[in-house]
């Protein structure tokens, strides 16, 4: 039943598509992290003119299918004169989708850092972005990375839907293989295995990164964290 000639014929095409998937996802994840961080910072410490539009954007992106977002950008925007290539539209949509999802993980990370630390940093005159980088982002990474890993894997998986608007990634390559070899089961199973490997490698790498950024942390109860208790006590007095 399983036709191995499809494997030998299709695998080079699929590997080529996989490299495109990795490229497009990397671009979208990097853009998503930058925009997502800005959204998260805006939602935590911006005025209402930043908070409200940011929240509306995040809710819209998180509550509609990526496929519909892609159709809107690729097929509907040309009507008002905005014509993007399939790849550009795909990367744009995937980046915005990633930004909305990442921003939620980053926002909860920022909120996980005790507020007193930010106030203390501001009180000693530390500039806002230095405070964000040295106090908040430095501490929240161990908290954020597990959630971010899930979101990054989510972006990689969702990117498969972009083949529907003809972005030349691995799921699109599968359609090419199916068209040439008439072995849809073999082709899509191969693609599934390739995605499985890719998401497995990403999860493994993020696990190493998580251990790396949490290495400095003292184990709970060893006494180095007592400063935290003092701060929360001070907060309850104010």
């Amino acid at each position, binding site marked *: *039943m399983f036709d191995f000639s499809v494997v030998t014929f299709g695998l080079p095409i699929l590997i080529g598509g996989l490299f495109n998937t990795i490229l497009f996802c990397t671009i979208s994840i990097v853009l998503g992290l930058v925009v997502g961080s800005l959204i998260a910072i805006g939602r935590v410490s911006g005025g209402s003119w930043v908070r409200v539009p940011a929240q509306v954007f995040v*809710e*819209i992106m*998180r*509550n*509609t*299918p*990526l*496929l*519909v*977002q892609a*159709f*809107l950008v690729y*097929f*509907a*925007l040309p*009507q*008002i004169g905005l014509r993007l290539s399939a790849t550009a539209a795909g990367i744009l949509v995937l980046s915005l989708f990633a930004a909305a999802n990442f921003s939620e993980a980053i926002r909860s990370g920022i909120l996980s850092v005790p507020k007193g630390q930010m106030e203390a940093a501001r009180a000693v005159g530390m500039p806002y972005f230095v405070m964000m980088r040295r106090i908040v982002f430095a501490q929240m990474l161990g908290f954020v990375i597990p959630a971010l890993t899930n979101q990054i*894997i989510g972006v*990689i*998986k*969702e*990117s*498969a*839907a972009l*083949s*529907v608007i003809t972005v030349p990634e691995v*799921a699109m390559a*599968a359609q090419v293989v199916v068209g040439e070899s008439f072995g*849809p*089961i073999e082709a*899509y*199973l191969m*693609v*599934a295995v390739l*995605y*499985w490997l890719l*998401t*497995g490698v990403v*999860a493994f790498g993020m696990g190493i990164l998580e251990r790396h950024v949490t290495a400095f942390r003292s184990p709970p109860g060893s006494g180095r964290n007592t400063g935290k208790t003092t701060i929360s006590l001070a907060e309850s007095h104010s």
Partner: protein
Amino acid sequence: MSNLSALLQGALTTVEVCALAVILGSVLGVLLAVAFQSGSKLLQFLVRCQVSFARGTPLFIQIMVIYFLLPALGIDIPRFYAGVIALGFNSSAYISEMIRGAILTIPPGQVEAARALALPKRLIWAHITLPQVFALILPPLTVEFAALLKGSALLSVIGLVELTRTAQQVIGYSFAPITTWLQVGLLYFLMCYALAFATRYTQRMTSAYRPREAI
């Protein structure tokens, strides 16, 4: 206005597919969780593989594999049920993980007490573990339902006439892609947003079952 009624008809199909998929996913998820807890190393390995595969590969690819695999296995069923099976297969992995997490929060003393009273395993599952698990997973189940609503848009690719496919058909004769896709986006948004309220409601309803701080 007939365009909108066509879209609403499509939205109804979307909800139907997802509701059946959640039911199928819950049944499979319970079976997977029970198999995992059975203690057999082989069963645990198989469950781990299923969960890892369903969560590590795109739903789109799973839909395509199942859509082409079913006829090859001699199972000739309408697209609607192929879609239900694909979404149910996908969500069973997530639901079995939810159930495993929920089982961990039930105090082990309850099962030990039941075993001490010589209650058969089957009855321990039916009367002690699963009723509490059901209350615990109800809120995350509504989140899973919302994820399926969004994921079901991919069923348009195998030709199931749900909301997204209906939109493509409507655009075919109305030539108004912007309005139609905005309407479709709004319908998905409303459905998912309604489920977010259901999540909060079920969280409040079942809060008695969640462990309190410091037992």
